[in-house]
């Protein structure tokens, strides 16, 4: 039995603080990933040809984990940039900083990744401002170059460099969407929530100590909850949320409560929707 306040992975194998470009294979074993289809093979093929990849799919269905898994297998460092609406091209490419009495150029994470031959993952790229999405264009075609306008220079990508973006089609796409000219530069991989069987395996694997029965119930809850997508639920119950719920159960919380805090409360403030979700939970656990 673990000490209740121990963190889940207390082995100390991971670096707590590292450079923006981390070492390749930061962990001893490959991050756990359960393939949904042929995505592993497709990604490998794309990487062999150094074609940029777009991961499409709802939040929490395993896009990031997939990439971590692939980066480990391909033995490349993974640089992740979470995009947000204030993300400017400077945040990606780099900027001048003042040091002492002079200005110093500092590479942004994208530039660092380009130079180091890492896999650069721009997570939720639609969130970024359009001007920052355009700068990736020359990187994504045969040129594989990144212009640094402010310094008047251009960086040619390391031969191992690969650009990956993620893109959540259901998420605020009315107002924000990638330009078609951006989209067509990528190999598109569609992700969805894993099949029931797979999702159960994921839960059992991710959360040691979770019994198969609870896993099955959690997965069944998620199926039902996902059917409420068009009823005010912007983000449906994700595999990640299920893993959280499973973790809370394995930490000793009653199942209904665990689901409430991990599955219901985070995704909605809508009282009726929350009540409906709770009913679904209660129909499985009591």
């Amino acid at each position: 039995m673990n000490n209740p306040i121990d963190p889940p992975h207390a082995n100390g194998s991971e670096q707590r603080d590292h450079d923006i470009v981390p070492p390749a294979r930061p962990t001893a074993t490959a991050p756990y990933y359960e393939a949904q289809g042929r995505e592993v093979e497709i990604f490998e093929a794309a990487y062999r040809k150094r074609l940029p990849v777009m991961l499409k799919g709802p939040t929490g269905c395993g896009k990031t984990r997939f990439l971590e898994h692939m980066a480990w297998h391909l033995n490349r460092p993974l640089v992740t940039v979470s995009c947000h609406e204030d993300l400017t091209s400077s945040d990606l490419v780099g900027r001048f900083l003042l040091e002492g009495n002079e200005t110093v150029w500092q590479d942004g994470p994208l530039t660092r990744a380009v130079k180091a031959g890492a896999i650069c993952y721009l997570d939720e790229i639609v969130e970024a401002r359009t001007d920052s999405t355009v700068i990736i264009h020359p990187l994504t075609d045969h040129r594989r170059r990144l212009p640094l306008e402010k310094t008047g220079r251009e960086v040619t990508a390391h031969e191992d460099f690969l650009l990956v973006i993620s893109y959540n089609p259901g998420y605020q796409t009315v107002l924000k969407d990638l330009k078609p000219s951006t989209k067509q530069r990528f190999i598109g991989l569609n992700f969805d929530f894993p099949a029931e069987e797979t999702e159960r395996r994921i839960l059992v694997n991710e959360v040691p100590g979770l019994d198969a029965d609870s896993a099955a119930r959690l997965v069944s809850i998620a199926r039902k909850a996902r059917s409420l997508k068009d009823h005010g639920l912007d983000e449906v119950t994700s595999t990640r949320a299920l893993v959280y719920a499973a973790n809370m159960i394995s930490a000793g919380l009653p199942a209904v409560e665990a689901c409430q805090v991990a599955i219901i409360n985070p995704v909605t403030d809508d009282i009726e929707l929350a009540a409906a979700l709770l009913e679904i939970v209660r129909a499985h656990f009591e």
Partner: protein
Amino acid sequence: MSEALEPKDGASTDIDPDAAGELAAALEALARDSFVAHHAAQIALPPVLVYGDAVALEWLAACRRLFEFDRDAGRAFARATPDVAAVAKSVLPWTRQALRFLDYPGSWKAIDGFMGNLVNAYTTLGPVGEMRWADIGFAWCGRHTDSGNAYFNTPVHDLAGRLGVPGIEQLSAPAEALFTTRRLALGTFLPGALRVRALLGHGAIAPWARRGIDVLTADRFRGEAYFRLESDESLRLLLDDLPGFRAQQNERFLKMLLTAWYGEACDIQDSGWSPDKGRAFVETDGRAVLAPVTLPDREHAVLGVLHVAGHLQFGTYAVAPLKVLFAQLGLDAEITDARAISWEPLIAQFGDDTGRFKLLFDLCEDLRVDHAIAMIAPTHLRRLARLAALLPMPDGVARDYYRLASASLQFALGGAHSLSQEVATGFARLLEPDATVVDAFRVARSLLPGLDLPKPQTPEDVQNAYLPGRSPNLGRDVKAAQGPGSQSERSEQKESQSGEAEGEQDEDSETVEQETGPQDAEADDSGGAAAHAQSAANRKGTGQTRTGERPAQPQTKTGGPDRWLPYPEWDYRENRYKIDWAWVAEKVLAESNPQEAQRLADRHAGTLKRLKKAIQSQKPTRPAPLTRQMDGDDLDLEATVRYVTERIAGRSPEARVYKRRAIRNRDVAVTLLADLSTSIMQTVADGNGRLVDTVRAGVLLFAESMEEVGDPYSIAGFCSKYRDNVNYYRIKDFDQPFDDRVRATVGGLSGRLATRMGAAIRHAVHRFEGVSTPRRLLLLLSDGRPEDYDDGGDRRYLHEDTRMAVKEAVNAGVHPFCITVDTLANQYLPQIFGRGHYLVLDQIGSLPAKLPEIYLRLRR
């Protein structure tokens, strides 16, 4: 004469010859007055004589006076005498009471009622209570003859409502207040009040009456209809007061559940139930789930809706299995999805046992369906069982059925059960995945003879036999559904048939409802189980009313098929919302006046020019870079130089050396909502004509300025008459160009009716839907306080409602701001809109120039 007295003489102990003479004389006098009177008195006299001659004499004298007063009164008095005397064990007290009616001309009907009620009054209230009952009635006779009639003609049982004299006083007190303040006759008040008390207890009478007074003040006719419970609003309000879980208000929640479990949600409609109809059930008409206004609690509702939708889902009313069922019994019944299913041929074979069979059939079918539901919602059976265990076991006949149903649940759950081998085998068949309603029928038929179940005698027996969440499956007219016969067939059938089936249903549905209603009720009666039939018939009639529907509508001059939207209204006296209380219709203003618009434009041309210039100078022509930022796209050279200099000078400046090209986001959308009530037609004090001219000019200049500013804006006006007639005039929508037509409409603005501001604000907020600007402003242009015809003179009522509407608007991301020309507005606007959210213009003439200015200041 004397012969007539003889047998009675024998009954009394001693005879005083003098008294006998007096009696004879009195009777003779009566005979001279009227033959009828004499005859009636003679018949009634014997039981009175028991109390002695003096009593009899006084009684005879009273009888004579009453006959003199009114023939019918006298007759009623004499006729009731024997019974009353027997129960009251006295004569004089009530005889003297009867004489008091002589003080009230025209009260013969009251005497009739009084005499008729006396027996009950003595038995239920006792002599003391009877006195009080009569005294209250006499007070009413004194107030108003017809009210006195109504009082004495209302059965004492009803008046007292099992509470004795206090029950009567409870009713009389508010009635008295209503009569003295509003001249509301007791006859109008009483029937409704009695029903209110029967439904909701006496505590509900006062609020119900209070609201009624509001309506009555506004409109006598509507008010009286309200008290007679003839108006929809009155009935709805009552049902609103019922405790429990309200299905209609939780419709979205329940539908989401259905979507989650069954992949699709059917409609959830009101079943038209009211508490005097017995137990509340969730039912279905084969298409929608019909839920009562209120259910005991949430668990009942969730399980009930799930269960009934389960019947639809798992084919209880599906065409295919029903055809099989009828065919197997050799019955040639036409089952289509357009007609209500007639179960009569199926159950006719059971004769006297129909009542038992129906309950057992339901029990079996419910078990099958609930088990199928549990395949999707695993804890369903357990929850049903738990809820059933929580409730008290019903008494009498229902108990055996209830117990069997509970046992069947335990059996399905795999727990210990007390079922016989035969029953267990039957039930086991129903739990198989391919079981259908046909199996339920067969199992019920085969088990019926072996089970010692009692016959249901009353509707209550039937109603109480069901576990919570379940309901009579055959109780209502149900239309068969194309589609699921059994789970396995479902997917194929759905694809091939759903499209055509839907089209057909709609066409026929209405006529079918009318046709099948009465016919089915008759068939039910002949079926033998009168109790069951009665309960079915009871409920049948109510299925037509839908409480969600709008009340009858006084037509307004604009006419046309308006779409009415209901909004809640806040009642501070009850501290809660009245659901769907204020009804708003969007309308188009018919009047327009292009000449007036032109005149106003010319007159205010100077002001407008000035405004436009001011706007232009404020308008950002291109994205202004934000300088001196902590972070940004480029270095702000100026700031950098300053930073470096300061550093060199030995200070430690903040490193605000970046600039950013982002525009500060100040997208604003605004709605100008003008109060178009009658009061704007008044002439203003400062000699500038009528207020409406200023309003027109203000709206016009506002629109012209907005065109210059470029922010999305809309213009609307509102007025109201009663809570169910709030008009919202769309003058210009957000996406509509400001053209001459709109100008002309503004030029033709005029005032009418009253100011139900809260409803208008709620609708204006609703109209903001689809406007994506981050800031949304609602500019309210008003000239007075919120008021309407039906607020009963209680100003605070609409004030409080408007305050709540403002609060709701803010929560919805719309910021209301009120501009008023009412110089007294300082008395109420701070409470409604809050400090700083309103402006009082003391110079009305300044409105046209001020309105755009205020907006520009607000949007900054």
